[in-house]
Each structure stands twice: as structure tokens, then as C-alpha cells.
């Protein structure tokens, strides 16, 4: 077990900078998820921690030691790959014990460790099978078992669930969480799936274009995103961004969305945004769950407006409604019994207590 630290880590391929100076501190026992769209540098970062990629500049530390020039086998890490990377000619037991056998561990200990890991992952019955006789989920368990038996300082997961179908993915996600709760090994997990990131992580690192956009707990990222990218990436359906301006109406601070729609801001928000210039082009960020059907008794800070729905998507426990505000597509979440219909007019309520205001040019959340 150990902490991992990245200091100004840069990775350059010829003239392309894949990772642009990353600083990250991962504490002992922590489950960190690196998340971002493809090409954001998350896998490269993981591979640099593993030692599979050289770093161009900066330092990587595992357990306090700089490991920049330490080969992968001496870093005491274990990695689970997206495509499992099981040795096809070896049985499950041989796959799991390969690393230990290379290090000449006593046979009894190897057997004990493999048995224990197999029990933990519920693959005891499969121990003598070859990988090709296993299903995708079973292969992924074996790949995890291979990592666990080594009892490494750090687990590295490179999109381990991407090859599984949706149902199995949810199941394995829970398995991974359970395993981490039992073995408590420091874990760095890479995924492009923000749901996986939110559900698994102690802390999520959102990456974009080779940089870290924000580091925080799942709740922090969801409720207090630092940038437009994080606000739009975390959460499904994504946060709506509506072009807006601030204006003073009768001594109150209002946010104007369209020629017709201008809402007074709740006092807390008004105090926060009061100093902003009124001419600046801003974006109002509002999550779909804060755009609901209108009630008779509305809380303070909740404002209503009328619109015509384009499309509705009944999801069972809720109905997603899609409409446009002066060309900006917007998504809201309403009660399935609220009577939302394709092409029908509807009165919606926007909860401005949960709004975000963003600078349109810089993308910063204000």
C-alpha cells in the first residue's frame, strides 16, 4: 500500500503534447478515477504511472520514491487491462500465479494466495479453465485476480469494464467496489464513463486535452463544477447551458434568457453575482432535474415559464422533456404523470437556487 504523487508530469509524442503538466496526489487506500473524453490523456497518465510509457518531464512517486526510471516490474504495481490481456495458453490458476512464479515464491504460498483471490472473486470453480472457456465477466475477474495475488502497492485499471455489456458492467462495478473495500489497495482507475467514475471513486479527476480540469469527490464535481467542461461532462443527461445576461430590474438583479423570459435571482445568488458587469455574455447552467413541471406552491427562487415541448422520453420513474429556447436545445426532467406530450405546450419551473453562471468565453464557473 502506498500513496502516489504526480509532479508536473508531461508526456510529449513528437510534437503532440498528450499530457500537459499534471499535478496529482493520491493518498494511501484511496480509489481515484481519471475520467474524460477519448484523447484527454487519462490512459497515458495511467500508463506513465505503470511505467509502460516514459515521462517526458516531471516526477512520478510511488510510496515516496521517484520511479521515473524504474521499470514496471520493479514498481510493485498491478494493472487490469480493457481487453483483459490474459495469457491464452495458461489456465486461470497459472494466469494468476505467473507473476509470483517469476519471482520464485514458494509453491505453498502461491497456492494459498491464488486460492484466496479466487475465493474473493468467486472464481474457485474456474481455476483449471483456459481463458477461452470463460465469459467476458469471468475473464475480467481473472484479470483482477491476477492483480490481487501480487498484493501490489497500487492497482491500475485501464477501462476494465468497457468490453462488457451494460448489465454486466453494473454488476462488475459493484464487484470492483467490494474488492477495494476488502483489500484497500490504492487504486487508480481510468474510464470515459462518468457514471462509473461517480459510483466508484473516492475522488474523481476530470481530465480534458491533457490537463486536469478539476479534482473532487463525486458530489463536489456534481454540485460545484469549476468549469463548463466539468459541468457538462458530469451528470446525465448533461447540464443545460443557456446564453444569458444580467440586468437590473426595479432594484433587483435579474437574469435575462430571452426577450420574453427574465427571472429575478434568489437573494443568495444575487449577492454572489451582483458585482458582475451587466453587458457580459454569460451562460446559465441548469441541470435537467432543476427544470421540472410547475406546481401550485413553488419554493422561493423557483420561476416558471411556458414552452412547447419538441420531444418527450418516458423513462418510467421520470420523463425527459426536450424543448428549445431561442435555438438552444434544453432538457428537463418532469414527473411521468405531469402530462408531458410531444409537441404540446407545458409550463415548466426552473429552480434558480441550483443555477450556475458561467463566463461564455473562458468557460469558468462564476
Amino acid at each position, binding site marked *: 500500500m502506498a500513496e502516489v504523487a504526480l509532479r508536473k508530469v508531461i508526456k510529449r509524442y513528437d510534437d503532440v503534447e498528450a499530457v500537459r503538466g499534471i499535478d496529482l496526489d493520491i493518498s494511501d487506500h484511496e480509489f481515484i478515477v481519471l475520467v474524460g473524453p477519448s484523447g484527454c490523456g487519462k490512459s497515458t497518465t495511467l500508463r506513465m504511472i*505503470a*511505467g*509502460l510509457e516514459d515521462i517526458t518531464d516531471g516526477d512520478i512517486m510511488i510510496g515516496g520514491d521517484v520511479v521515473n526510471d524504474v*521499470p*514496471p*516490474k520493479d514498481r510493485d*504495481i*498491478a*494493472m487490469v*487491462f*480493457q*481487453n*483483459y*490481456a*490474459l*495469457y*491464452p*495458453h495458461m489456465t486461470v490458476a497459472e494466469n494468476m500465479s*505467473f*507473476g509470483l512464479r*517469476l*519471482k520464485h515464491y514458494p509453491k505453498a504460498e502461491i497456492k494459498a494466495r491464488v486460492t484466496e483471490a479466487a475465493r474473493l472473486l468467486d472464481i474457485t470453480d474456474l481455476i483449471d479453465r*483456459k*481463458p*477461452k*472457456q*470463460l465469459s*467476458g465477466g469471468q*475473464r475480467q475477474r481473472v484479470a483482477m485476480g*491476477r492483480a490481487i495475488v*501480487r498484493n501490489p502497492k497500487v492497482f491500475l485499471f485501464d477501462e476494465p469494464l468497457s*468490453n462488457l455489456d451494460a448489465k454486466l458492467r453494473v454488476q462488475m462495478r459493484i464487484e470492483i467496489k467490494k474488492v477495494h473495500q476488502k483489500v484497500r489497495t490504492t487504486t487508480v482507475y481510468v474510464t470515459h464513463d462518468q457514471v462509473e467514475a461517480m459510483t466508484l471513486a473516492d475522488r474523481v479527476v476530470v481530465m480534458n486535452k491533457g490537463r486536469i480540469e478539476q479534482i473532487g469527490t463525486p458530489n463536489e464535481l456534481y454540485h460545484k463544477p469549476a468549469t463548463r467542461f466539468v459541468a457538462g461532462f458530469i451528470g446525465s443527461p448533461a447540464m443545460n447551458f443557456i446564453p444569458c445576461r444580467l440586468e437590473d430590474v426595479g432594484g433587483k438583479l435579474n437574469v435575462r434568457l430571452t426577450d420574453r423570459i427574465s427571472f429575478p435571482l434568489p437573494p443568495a445568488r444575487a449577492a454572489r453575482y451582483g458585482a458582475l458587469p451587466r453587458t457580459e455574455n454569460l451562460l446559465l447552467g441548469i441541470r435537467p432535474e432543476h427544470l421540472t413541471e410547475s406546481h401550485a406552491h413553488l419554493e422561493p427562487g423557483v420561476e416558471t415559464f411556458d414552452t412547447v415541448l419538441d420531444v418527450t422520453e418516458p423513462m418510467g420513474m421520470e420523463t425527459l422533456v426536450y424543448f428549445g429556447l431561442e435555438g438552444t436545445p434544453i432538457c428537463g426532467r418532469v414527473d411521468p404523470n405531469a402530462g408531458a406530450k410531444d409537441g404540446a405546450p407545458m409550463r415548466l419551473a426552473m429552480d434558480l437556487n441550483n443555477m450556475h453562471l458561467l463566463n461564455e468565453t473562458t468557460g469558468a464557473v462564476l
Partner: protein
Amino acid sequence: MSTLAIDKAGPTRKVKLRSMSRDRTWALRWSYFFLVLFAIFFLIPPIYMLITSLKSSAEISAATNPWWVFHPTLSNYVELLTSNQFLRFFWNSSMISIVVVIVTMLISIPAAFALARMKFWGSATLATGVFLTYLIPDSLLFIPLFKMLAVVQDITGITLLNRWYVLVFIYPTLTVPFCTWIMIGYFASIPKELDEAALIDGASWLQTLTRIFIPVALPGLIAATIFAFTVSWAQFLYPLVFTTSIDQLVLPVGITTTLIKGDVFNWGQIMTGALLGAAPPLVIYAFLMDYYIAGLTAGATKG
């Protein structure tokens, strides 16, 4: 509405299926026609060899039906198999082929591994270069090679010309490039994550090669082995040029030089010798084909 759609779709699908199976039947018929045609075409020479090998010289030269054996005899086989000369050719060919296969594998496997996996400056160019050397015909190479060996022999005083073992050094110029090329392809098809997993598990490059790559690429290895053996066994030009004494000859050259005296062709023994000479590659094919199981890598990654 929906019933109507089903009614409409039903017959169309049936018609399509029927026409598909009809296409398939015709494709199969044509395949069998050509397979049988080619099988006959390629099997006639060995059958004719077998028939001739069972005839006496008198019967071969007699004006009877050449496709029938009237007085079958094993005398050709007995004579060849008891002739020290023929057994010597056989021994020379076997030794050369076995050593060449070993030498080829010892060079090709590490070379292919390095070219396929250890990305170094110019590795891609080198890989193409290896293949290009294979494209130079041996009929172009034998004169400079002969000259080179003569020079080395003059300088070192070690007899190289007219010795069967010199072929062990020469044949790999034919086998190594092609085998390396085959192996590069097989090694390249092994997912990159497999050696990365081995690397993280603590394997050195050599251990990754011996414990992961060689077992996983076994079908490719066997294909390369068969190729190297067949090339060495059937090589005619190089042994014809580099060996001349009877006791140094290999099978193909030995048969043609000793059984053809001037314009007298000992057809019975030539055919017998050719048949016996074709046996080892056949045995090797039959034996190794059992291990030539495609899809050994299935299960390594997402299947």
C-alpha cells in the same frame, strides 16, 4: 396495420432465403468441381511415380499400358534401401534439414520478436529489408556465394567447398528472411497488452518471449518450421553447386547424379528415390498439422 406488415414481410423473406441457399449450392458445386479437378491434376504425378516404382526396368521399357503394373516388384525399393549411397544421401539431407531448421528458428524467433515488439530506430525499415532479401533468387546468389566461400577457404584453410555441412550455413540465407517475416506477422498479431501484462508481472524480455510469445504463436512457429524444413529438404541448386563428391551429396542431387548415367535413365529407381524422398516432409506435415491449431490466441483478449 402490424398484421399487414408481417404478411408482406413473410413471403419476401422466404424467397430471399431460398435464393440464398440456391446460390450456396451452386457455389459448393463449383468448389467441388475445381477441387476434384486440381486434386486429379496434382495427384497424377505421384501416382505415376508409385506405379513406375513397382515395375522392373524391363516392364518400364516394354510397350504396355503405362498405367498398370503387370508384374509388381519391390526390387527398386530393396536396391535403394540397401544401397549405402542412397542411405548416405538420405542421412546428409536429414542432418542438413534438421540443423537448418534449428539454426533458422534460433535466428528468426528473436529477430522477429525484436522487429515486432522492441520499437527501435529503423525497425520498420529493417523488417521490410528482411523480406526484400528473400526476393533475391538463389540462382543470382550462388556464384557470389561460391566465390566468397572459396576466398574464406583460401584465407582460413578450412575446407568449405564440397562439404555437406557448408549447406547448413547457406540455406539459412533462404529460410531466415521468410521465417522471420512469418513470425513478425504472428508476433504482431499478439495483443500489445499481453506483453505489457507480462512486463508488469515481472517478466524480462527473454521471459516474455519464451513463456508468452512462443507458446501463443505456436501455429506460426510450426508454419515457419515446416517452411524451413521443406526448403532445405527440396533445395537443388545450392547442393548441386557446392557439393560434388558422391558422399557429400544430398537426396535430390544424389538421385539425379547417380541414377542418370549419360543418357541411361534408371526410371524405376529414380521414381522410387523420389517417392522415398517425399516421405519425410509428408510425415512432418502430418505430425505437425495436429498441432497447427488456428485460434490459439482466442481468449487472450475480448473474444
